[in-house]
Structures are given as structure tokens and as C-alpha cells.
């Protein structure tokens, strides 16, 4: 297996605790600047579901030095793009812009790491915006939030893992400016953040720029990693939800999956490819084509939001299926169980394993082609796992996984008695499906 050219990575840490990852690559005159904070859905306080994401919105609401509409104006005026996203174990903010705007982006990120203009007016405004976001993506859509938002609430039992990540409206509406100030002070200090720079810059000059803008951000001690552990279930749990908008039943099966760094972690990532990646995959071949039970099946660790590397707390390996007309969701689950048992017993063929590795190799080679792809890969690996160098080692590690390791990992983790099944039901009686 070739490992191919890859931009090199260097890392250092400022006195205030900020971790910095640099990956210069100059084929295009652009840079990516990202700040990854080690806080996500899981760490929002009880009674404040949805707060991590609401807070992400507040990070765009201005500071004393750069009041409300200016942040976006400055980035767009420089020819740059910007956005942010909240996930289970981190929250990311990024700008992709012409190389000459690197220093400006560092200034702006340092500025909002140092202080925010938190006030009732912007809080109220962004609360309304977030409620519309939840309506667009969940409440007004068929299957809204199915596997990523609802399934974990049934599969896990402790608040950090088992609550509504987008937020119950009464919790969102109860949020105060003081909550925001507390959350910011606790989780948004330089000691709890990773700054990632990728693209067309000189390593030494970039270090000076980072120093100039971020070194003056006062340190705030990073809280210790919280305990997120769950007890693994020993019997299958079955639940159902009614969806008045859904025309057809669907079903999701979630299995707690192996943590990063354990021996079963990478084999399960390959198992996901072998089971669901494209028309050559096991479940598509057997359940969609040969047995004609399903129309669709997709899945993997953290499906559909996230991947094998996005999490450090308990996470699900999820399969999401649409049965054909007339096939009960229970029959679909029984068929999935049979295929899992077969993979556990016999392991993948050499051929299946080779193709899954080739797909991983292609993914590894494609990510540095986009500034955002490279930035996100490094930011996630650095902020979530403290090992940015893993980004460039992962293809090589996948190449060493054996069929026996995949079979063993499937046997240990993708077991029916560990799983939670969520049947998604159209509400209309006698309707189609």
C-alpha cells in the first residue's frame, strides 16, 4: 500500500495552554484557520439541553472590539468563507480565505476567545434562529433527526449521552446571559482549545502570527475530562416513534461501538465499509438485492453525523434501513441480525477487506485536497484525541487490519443483545407502507 505525499504537520503549545497545529501546503494561495473547543453536546448542563449549539451561535454575535455584524463582513470582504459546527465532543469554528488574510483571521479568532459581548438582545435573537433551525431539520421534516438525534436517547441512560442534543424548546428558552458567560468561561479558554492552520503559509511566520494574537489571551484552566461511561446493555431494547410526516416505516439499530485507540476500533470502521458502503457491500447485496427485503441500508460509527474518529465518549454503530413495502421492520431487523452473525462467524473475505482498505486509502488521499477537509481531520484528531499526527498514520494502520480482527470486533460489539432498535412508524393507520 502506498502512503503518498502528505503535507507535514508541526505542533506547539502557547503558555496559556492553547494547542497549535500547523500543516503548510501551498498549491493554492489560500489558508484555512480553525479553532476546535473541547466541548460539545455531551457537556451541556442538565436543564439546558441544546445549549452547546445555541452557544456556538453566540460566538458570531460580536465582541467589544468587533461588534455584531462585523465578523462576517470582515471575512467576506477578504474573500473568505466562514462557519461553525457543534458535535458530540467538540465545537469547531473555521474560516477559509486568501493567504494574505491569515493574520486577520487569527486576530478575529483570538478576539472571540478572549471575550464576547454576551447580552439579552443577541441571546433572544439567536434563540429564535435556533428554534427555526430545529424546525427546519427536525420538526417539519419526515424522519427528522431519526438516527442521530432520537436513537441515542433510547440507547443510552446517562444525561450526557442520552439527551436531546438540539435542545428541548423549554430548555432553550430558559437559557440566560449568565449561563452563556459561565459556559464560555468554563469551556472556551485557550487551554481547552486547538488552533489549526492549513494552507499557503510559512511555518516560522505563522508561528509568529499565532504568538502575536493568541499569546495575550488570558489562561483559563481547562476542566478535567468528565466521566461519560455507560453500562453496556445485556438485552436488546425495542422502541418506536410515531411520525405523522413519514410516508414509509424505517428502522434503526444502534450498537455501542469500540472507543478510539482500543483494538476493535479500526476493525469496526472497516466493518462499516464492508457492511454498507455501496452496491458491493454485504447488506446491500444480500438484503437489498438478493432477498429484496430492503430498499436502502446505510450506517457505521456515529452515522449519520460524524464518523469513526469523531467521538471520545460512548457512541453508537448505527444501521438505518428502509424496508420494502409490506416487509415489517421486525423482519428487517431479523435479517440484519443474521448477516451480523455470519460476519462474526466467518469474518470478511480477503477481497472485501482489500476493497474496504482501498476506500480508506482513497479517502485519506482526498482529504488534504480541500482546506476544510484537512482542517477538520486535524482539528478533530487533535481536539478530541490529542493526536493530530494520527491523521497521516491512519491509512497505514488500516492496511494492517486482518479478517480475524474484523470478525472478532463484530463478535464483541455488533451483538443483538447489546443493541437498541428504534422502529419509525408513519402515524396514519391504513396508510401506505
Amino acid at each position, binding site marked *: 500500500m502506498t502512503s503518498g505525499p502528505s503535507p507535514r504537520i508541526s505542533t506547539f503549545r502557547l503558555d496559556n495552554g492553547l494547542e497549535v497545529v500547523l500543516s503548510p501546503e501551498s498549491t493554492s494561495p489560500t489558508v484555512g484557520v480553525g479553532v476546535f473547543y473541547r466541548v460539545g453536546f455531551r457537556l451541556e448542563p442538565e436543564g439546558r439541553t441544546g445549549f452547546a449549539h445555541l452557544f456556538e451561535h453566540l460566538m458570531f454575535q460580536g465582541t467589544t*472590539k468587533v461588534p455584531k455584524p462585523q465578523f462576517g463582513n470582515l471575512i467576506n470582504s477578504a474573500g473568505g468563507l466562514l462557519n461553525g459546527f457543534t458535535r458530540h465532543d467538540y465545537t469547531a469554528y473555521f474560516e477559509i480565505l486568501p493567504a494574505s488574510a491569515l493574520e486577520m483571521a487569527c486576530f478575529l479568532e483570538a478576539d472571540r476567545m478572549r471575550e464576547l459581548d454576551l447580552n439579552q438582545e443577541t441571546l433572544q435573537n439567536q434563540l429564535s434562529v435556533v428554534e427555526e433551525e430545529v424546525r427546519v431539520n427536525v420538526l417539519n421534516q419526515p424522519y427528522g433527526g431519526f438516527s442521530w438525534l432520537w436513537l441515542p436517547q433510547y440507547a443510552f441512560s446517562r444525561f450526557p449521552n442520552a439527551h436531546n442534543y438540539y435542545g428541548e424548546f423549554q430548555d432553550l428558552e430558559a437559557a440566560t446571559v449568565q449561563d452563556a458567560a459561565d459556559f464560555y468561561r468554563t469551556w472556551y479558554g485557550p487551554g481547552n482549545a486547538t488552533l489549526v492552520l492549513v494552507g499557503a503559509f510559512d511555518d516560522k511566520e505563522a508561528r509568529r502570527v499565532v504568538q502575536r494574537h493568541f499569546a495575550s489571551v488570558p489562561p483559563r484552566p481547562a476542566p478535567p475530562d468528565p466521566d461519560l461511561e455507560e453500562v453496556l446493555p445485556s438485552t436488546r431494547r425495542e422502541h418506536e416513534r410515531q411520525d405523522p410526516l413519514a410516508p414509509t416505516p424505517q428502522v434503526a439499530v444502534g450498537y455501542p461501538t469500540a472507543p478510539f485507540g482500543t483494538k476493535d476500533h479500526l476493525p469496526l470502521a472497516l466493518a462499516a465499509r464492508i457492511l454498507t458502503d455501496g452496491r458491493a457491500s454485504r447488506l446491500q447485496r444480500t438484503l437489498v438485492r438478493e432477498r429484496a427485503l430492503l430498499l436502502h441500508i446505510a450506517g457505521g460509527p456515529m452515522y449519520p453525523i460524524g464518523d469513526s474518529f469523531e467521538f471520545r465518549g460512548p457512541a453508537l454503530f448505527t444501521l438505518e434501513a428502509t424496508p420494502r413495502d409490506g416487509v415489517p421492520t421486525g423482519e428487517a431487523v431479523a435479517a440484519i441480525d443474521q448477516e451480523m452473525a455470519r460476519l462474526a462467524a466467518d469474518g470478511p473475505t480477503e477481497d472485501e477487506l482489500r476493497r474496504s482498505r482501498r476506500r480508506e486509502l482513497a479517502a485519506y488521499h482526498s482529504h488534504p485536497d480541500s482546506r476544510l477537509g484537512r482542517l477538520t481531520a486535524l482539528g478533530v484528531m487533535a481536539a478530541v484525541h490529542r493526536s493530530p499526527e494520527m491523521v497521516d498514520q491512519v491509512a497505514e494502520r488500516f492496511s494492517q487490519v486482518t479478517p480475524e480482527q474484523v470478525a472478532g470486533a463484530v463478535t464483541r460489539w455488533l451483538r443483538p443483545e447489546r443493541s437498541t432498535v428504534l422502529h419509525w412508524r408513519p402515524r396514519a393507520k391504513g396508510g401506505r407502507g
Partner: protein
Amino acid sequence: MTTPEPATISKVPVPGPVPELRVGSVHRTELDNGADVMVVPRPTVPRIEFRLSVPAGSALGPTAATAELLRMGLPLGTAELDQEQLAERLQDLGGSLQVYQDLDRLTLQAAALSEAEDELYRLMAALVAGPHFPGNDLQTEKAKLAEALRSARATPHFPPHEAVGQLVYRDHPYGRLEPTEGQVARVSRGSLLDLHRLTFIPRSAQITVVGDVDPRRTLRHLRSAFGAWEGPRRVPLAPRVRARVEPELLFLERPGSVQTVILSASSGPTHGEEGHIALTLATAVLGGGFTSRLMSNLREDKGYTYSPHARLENHLRDGMASASMEVRSDVTAAALAEIQHELARLATVAVPEAELRTTKSYLIGARLVMLQTQSGLASALAQVRGHGLDHRYLERYQQLVERTSAAEVMAAARRHLAPTAMTTVMVGDPSAAEGLEALVPVRRRRSPAG
């Protein structure tokens, strides 16, 4: 290495100008069968991106159902290579394949590790020359399409898009409705083979390759892979559009909706036509990026909506300008009033210089970012080539944007984005329609899945 007590920098550093956009060296040739080939070396990563486009979609398909099943049926493979074998071969190349279709073109979008480029071209050539559409697999694709249409019609976004296309384009093929489940069921294998023969004609085909390639070797591989592909004539294109947009509102009732989807659209110039860049700028001032007027007003000031935006969709024969957003039900009329206010302001007051400057930089920068990846460049080239343009258009884009004046932007907005130039479709709970008659003539209909 860090110094204690560093000083805080208090002034925003000023960035330089947005750099020029360069596609790089372009190698273009025509194969003996007439296929038009463009190869652009871009050795950033050891991969290649491949696009093969032919005129298709609404201009050609006898029905929307046949056209859509042709798209879905290509990955089912050939007589020699079934869908699993094709998918396995692609995975071995570290590759992927998606087939896309818009109103004008059908595109095979594929990628592979560059070491396997010749094998990828052979697989693609086999698909364009002889897809098979085997009976059982075709039945499965039909069932998937029927289910996808059912699910799409249950969303609040699909019905207004379908309706607005019909309101803007009427009898023109662009106004064709999406297929019904009955139409899907009636498509035969024979009609797919016929449509395939009409569509995949080398003389009408454009092939684009971007990636880690030696252009001479790539051209040799392409010649050898696609050399046997034959076909005599060119495919007809969609006729000219003569749009006549009525400034009215169609309200699709979807009882129980917790939000109203608003979509306003009009007809305008497309790539390469007079006024296209001015309208692109006007659309971006209205609803592009983080700092657009719809964003500042309806989101950051009023809190009515999450993601308001405006865009210009460049079909071959027309540019459809649109503004869209989802708002909470009880502010539906208030939101439309604000949208109309923004449309009217853009049509009657010149955009201030600073705002126009920001919008120009945003458009140019976004283009720069898009074109820096192999896949972004390949898709952009395939798209403009479909309009009879090429890489020079992409490189000239910056200059075209820079020299467009505020007066030209206002003229484009007045013609294509004024409240009187737009037709609007909404999907929401019937109660949300209250007050809309005060702003625009309203027709009501039940939403398809409502």
C-alpha cells in the same frame, strides 16, 4: 518560546487583495468519434476526477420518470459486468461513481486513485456504450424511486420547487413536473434502452479529467477507452425560454406544518448572457453569504428564520433567480413583507460602494476556494463547458465581477428581482396564510402530501 505578558493587538489587520484565479495548463482535444475532451493536471493529491456530460434531462426525456430511471439505472452495469462487479471494481480503484442530472445534462461523476485512471476510463466507457438495465434490478430501482418520491413529497421543500418551476417555465420542458409513482411503474426496459441510445452520443459528449495526470498519457488512455463508442448525430438542446412570471402567491396548504417554507423565483440571464454577472451580484447582495441583506434583516435582526438565502441557478437556456427561507408560521406575512421590502430596495436604491465591494470579494473568494480542489475544478469546468464556455471564462470571472457597477446591479435587480418580477410559492399550515392577501394575490391549494 513564548514571552510573558504579551500585548493585546487592538486593530484588525488588513488583508491583501484576493489573488487571481488560475486554472493552470489545459489540454483539449476531440476524439475521432467527436467527443470533446479536456484534461487539466492538478497534482495536489494522487487522485483523478472524471466527468462525462451529455445533453439530457428535460430537453430529451419522453417522461421525467424515464429520464430519472436512466440516471439511476447506469450503475446497474452492463451485460458483462453486473452492479456488484462494477461496484467492486470501482472500490479496487479507490474509486466512486455518482450519476447526476439537471434540467439540461446528465453527468457521470467519478474519481479514482491516479494509478488506476485507465481502468476507470474503461469502466465508464462500458457504461456509456452498453448499459443493461437487468429486469430484477430495474424493478428495485423503480421501487427506490417510488419511495424517494413519496418521501420527497412529504418534505415541505420538494412541492414548492416543483410548483415554482412550473409557474416560471410553464409549457417549456423546464417546467415539467417530477414523476408520479404511476409513471415510474410504467417505464419499460425498452424505453430506457431507447432513451440511452438517444442520449449517449459521442458527438454531444464532453469529458473532463482533473488530477494527478500526465496529459499525454491520459489522452492516450481516453482514446483507447472511448474509441469504440459510436453514434452519428448531435442531441437536440432545450428550446429558448420565453418566461412570463406572474407576481402572485401560490399557498400550498400542509396542515400541521410548524413552519412556512417561502420560495420566490424569477427568470433571468444565464452564464455568458448579457446582465448575468450583474444579476449574480444582485442575488448575492440579497442572499449570499453571512452578511447578505436577507440574513441581516430576517435572521440577525428579526429572528424569523435560520437560513435565508438567494441564488441564481444557471440552466442552459435561463437563469432562475430565487430567494428562499423557512419562517415560523405566525410571522409568515411579516416575513414576506420584509422580503418584498428588500427586493424593492435592491431594485430602486443603488447598492452602497462598501457593500458591493464586500459582495464582489465574497463571490471571487468563494470561487477561488471552490476551484482549488480537484473535484471543485472538475465540476466547475464540466458546468461551464455545458454552456459552451471554458476555463478562460472561469479565469475571467474575477475581472467580470470587478468591473460590474452598482448601476448595472440595480438594473438587473429591477428587471429580475423586483417584487413584480417574482412569483412565490409557500408551504405551510393554512392558518399561516393570514394577511398575505394584503401583499400579493393569493391562490390556495392542498400540498401533494398534505
